[in-house]
């Protein structure tokens, strides 16, 4: 019986090992988790080593090798959700459901755990329940969720208001003011010509919106010029940087335009196949996106002979991620798309020449494709008449944290930080994290600086912290994120992020010394210079920035000794005291203190 189900699911995915993630997600939906037997049979049927399946299951947060609840609650532990009360939410769920984090309730019905930022920082605390996002958790909503779970109500029958997720567009600009009419940019492409359209994008000087800012036209040209039997277009919809949620809003309202941008790219580089790699947290958007793809296919904006042009063939498939921040790194994303663990590749060669299945591939972010479509329609001028000389155009910011109006703000590059803080009604601001944990933290003295590639680049995350927050606790949260999300491939990042996390929590717990601060400086330098990919190279940023901006706060937390041991000797004696039934003064270390 189990074998028949596995066979049919694998068959449904064409027995293709590159679709291993899809296969495992489907199997998990069927069986609740991925048992050793399921894993073995899957490997046999796909004719791949069992360790490859095992490795993938253990790599992704949303794949489970052990039983989890029929209702699985994952609470976002992003710093913003934490500021909005995620810890209290965890307590309430645990108390009312009678469970503990990371444990399955004895009746097998429910389990709860933490997850990294789920992309709802403007409406946190947020959770994923059986993979579906629920935001704005408060006591009342928690109580009704607990009720629904205890009554065994299937998720599909839960009241719709639980699943309301407003887009919160606070300030629309060039991109957000109006979506293009579906098909209009493809018509422009066809009338202007392929080369002329690429030239137009080149003239716009559009740079990738995912964070790295590589010139889009150059990327497309390198890919087009790489000779191969296939070219691919991949949309990176795996925004995982804590604090960012602008791609979620684009996917909800501008997906048509994004698909159009991908189609234009396909025409320019000569691709027939495209993928949207959708982060697992946005599972609830999948059906809607598929529906838009189907409509576009029906309207001949996708499929064969697009817009009636013979040989203009392009199809788009949606592939789900499964909870791994590292898969936002483009080469890790491609590995994941091929059904493997998301380990960043050695670069060069770059994806433009050796990408998906080793073929030339353009990987761009949601916002980049949506913008490219608009440029193809309207020409470069409306785009680059705003912004700065080196950073033309506008940037979507996901503004959240300590401000009255969180949400999406679209600003021309060159906009000052203090203006953004004014617009979102932030008061008593202590510091701002620009570009997420991997970006830059700035304090008040730098609020005159501006958003741009030359000053403060950002992939879209903009987190505001007011004077009641502790920058070291913020850094601690960010560093724990990197320690949890790194892939484990290279030594400095795999080991270094954990050492950095431990050292910072030692300082935060009050047992750090001067030596630990020096240690942090050295670890930061080592990890940033020696790591394999961008994750490791930027993971120390929160520590380096807080050390620079808030040195006095570090000093206030550490003691005056040059060194304190990592283990707490007094606590280590507790077991011996219990075993011997002693608790007299001589059984404590205090006697040795001066």
């Amino acid at each position, binding site marked *: 019986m189990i074998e028949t189900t596995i066979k049919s699911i694998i068959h449904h995915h064409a027995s293709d090992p590159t679709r291993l993630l899809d296969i495992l997600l489907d199997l998990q939906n069927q069986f609740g988790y991925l048992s050793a037997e399921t894993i073995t049979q899957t490997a046999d049927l796909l004719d791949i080593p*069992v360790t490859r399946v095992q490795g993938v299951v253990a790599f992704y947060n949303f794949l489970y090798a052990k039983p989890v609840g029929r209702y699985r609650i994952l609470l976002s532990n992003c710093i913003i959700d934490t500021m909005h009360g995620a810890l209290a939410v965890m307590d309430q769920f645990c108390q009312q459901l009678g469970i503990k984090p990371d444990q399955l309730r004895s009746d097998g019905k429910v389990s709860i755990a933490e997850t990294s930022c789920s992309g709802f920082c403007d409406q946190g605390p947020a959770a994923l329940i059986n993979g579906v996002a629920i935001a704005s958790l408060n006591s009342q909503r928690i109580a009704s969720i607990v009720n629904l779970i205890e009554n065994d109500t299937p998720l599909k029958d839960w009241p719709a208001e639980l699943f309301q997720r407003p887009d919160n567009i606070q300030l629309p600009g060039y991109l957000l003011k109006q979506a293009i009419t579906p098909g209009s940019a493809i018509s422009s492409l066809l009338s202007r010509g392929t080369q002329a359209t690429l030239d137009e994008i080149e003239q716009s000087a559009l740079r990738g919106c995912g964070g790295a800012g590589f010139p889009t036209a150059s990327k497309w040209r390198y890919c087009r010029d790489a000779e191969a039997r296939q070219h691919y277009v991949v949309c990176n919809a795996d925004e995982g940087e804590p604090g960012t949620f602008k791609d979620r809003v684009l996917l909800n309202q501008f997906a048509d335009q994004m698909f159009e941008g991908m189609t234009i790219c396909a025409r320019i580089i000569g691709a027939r196949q495209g993928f949207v790699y959708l982060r697992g947290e946005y599972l609830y958007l999948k059906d809607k996106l598929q529906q838009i793809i189907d409509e576009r296919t029906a309207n001949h904006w996708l499929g064969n002979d697009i817009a009636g042009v013979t040989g203009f063939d392009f199809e788009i498939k949606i592939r789900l991620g499964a909870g791994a921040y590292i898969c936002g790194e483009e080469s890790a994303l491609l590995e994941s798309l091929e059904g493997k663990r998301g380990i960043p590749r050695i670069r060069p060669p770059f994806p433009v020449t050796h990408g998906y299945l080793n073929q030339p591939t353009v990987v761009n972010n949601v916002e980049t494709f949506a913008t490219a479509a608009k440029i193809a329609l309207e020409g470069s001028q409306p785009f680059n008449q705003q912004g700065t000389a080196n950073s033309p155009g506008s940037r979507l910011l996901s503004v959240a944290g300590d401000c009255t109006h969180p949400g999406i703000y679209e600003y021309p590059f060159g906009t000052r930080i203090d203006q953004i803080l004014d617009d979102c009604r932030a008061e008593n601001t202590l510091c701002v994290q620009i570009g997420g944990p991997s970006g830059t933290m700035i304090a008040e003295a730098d609020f005159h600086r501006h958003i741009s590639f030359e000053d403060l680049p950002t992939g879209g995350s903009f987190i505001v912290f007011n004077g009641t927050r502790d920058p070291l606790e913020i850094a601690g949260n960010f560093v724990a994120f990197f320690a949890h999300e790194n892939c484990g491939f290279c030594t400095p990042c795999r080991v270094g992020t954990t050492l950095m996390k431990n050292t910072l929590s030692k300082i935060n717990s009050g047992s750090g010394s001067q030596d630990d601060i020096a240690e942090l400086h050295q670890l930061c330098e080592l990890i940033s210079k020696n790591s394999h990919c961008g994750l490791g190279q930027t993971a120390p940023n929160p520590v380096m920035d807080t050390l620079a901006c808030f040195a006095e706060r570090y000093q206030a937390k550490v003691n005056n000794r040059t060194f304190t041991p990592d283990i707490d000797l007094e606590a280590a004696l507790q077991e011996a005291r219990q075993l011997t039934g002693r608790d007299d003064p001589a059984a404590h270390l205090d006697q040795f203190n001066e």
Partner: protein
Amino acid sequence: MKTNSISIDGQQITFREGQTIIQAALEAGIYIPYLCYHPDFEAHGSCKVCTVRVNGSHCSACTTFASDGQVVDNHCEDLNSSRRAITQMLFVEGNHLCPSCEKSGDCELQALGYYLKLFGSHFPHLFPHREVDATHPHILLDRDRCIFCELCVRASREVDQKNVFAISGRGIDSELVVNSPSGTLLDSGLDVNDKAAHVCPVGAILIKNQAFQVPIGQRKYDKNRIDDADLIEVKHDHIDS
């Protein structure tokens, strides 16, 4: 004019097209410390011990191709100090008890530690719980000593064509796993003559019953420091081929 030469710490050496910096260096008799690199396999670039500075930026010497005019820094205090710290990270990440390890004296991690003048582990030990697999009649797998160089993974896949080993998990919870119905070496098909059984640079994969055939004091790195030992090997390989 193309001269196919690079400079390493001021010394000009020539390279052949397609060679990486580490290949060119070793061939020219210059030692760049490494652990996951192996001349028989495609470069992996994960241990980061071979990090050098090329024209001012840090990169792995094993994955960076030599190209005309590169100025490479290799033996300088800051790079060696990073290498020392990375080596210390590998020590604290696993459970490495050299005095009781039968690989002592033949172990590349230990030899590298001596070469880099590593006098202690510096970082707090993480003391992970990892499983020992003693099921195979001739081969022992002691995961406590694994450094994730993936040489066994590569050897088993590329040379033995068996895929006995793989890395599973993520981040600091990564682990070396065995491809067999039981998950142990017993039914994995690993043969004592396989390349994968002999390629481990540390004491994670050992051939049983040979522990002290070569006495302590007469082992590879007892006789030569790791840089000399590796350069002698490169020379021999060169003469053989």
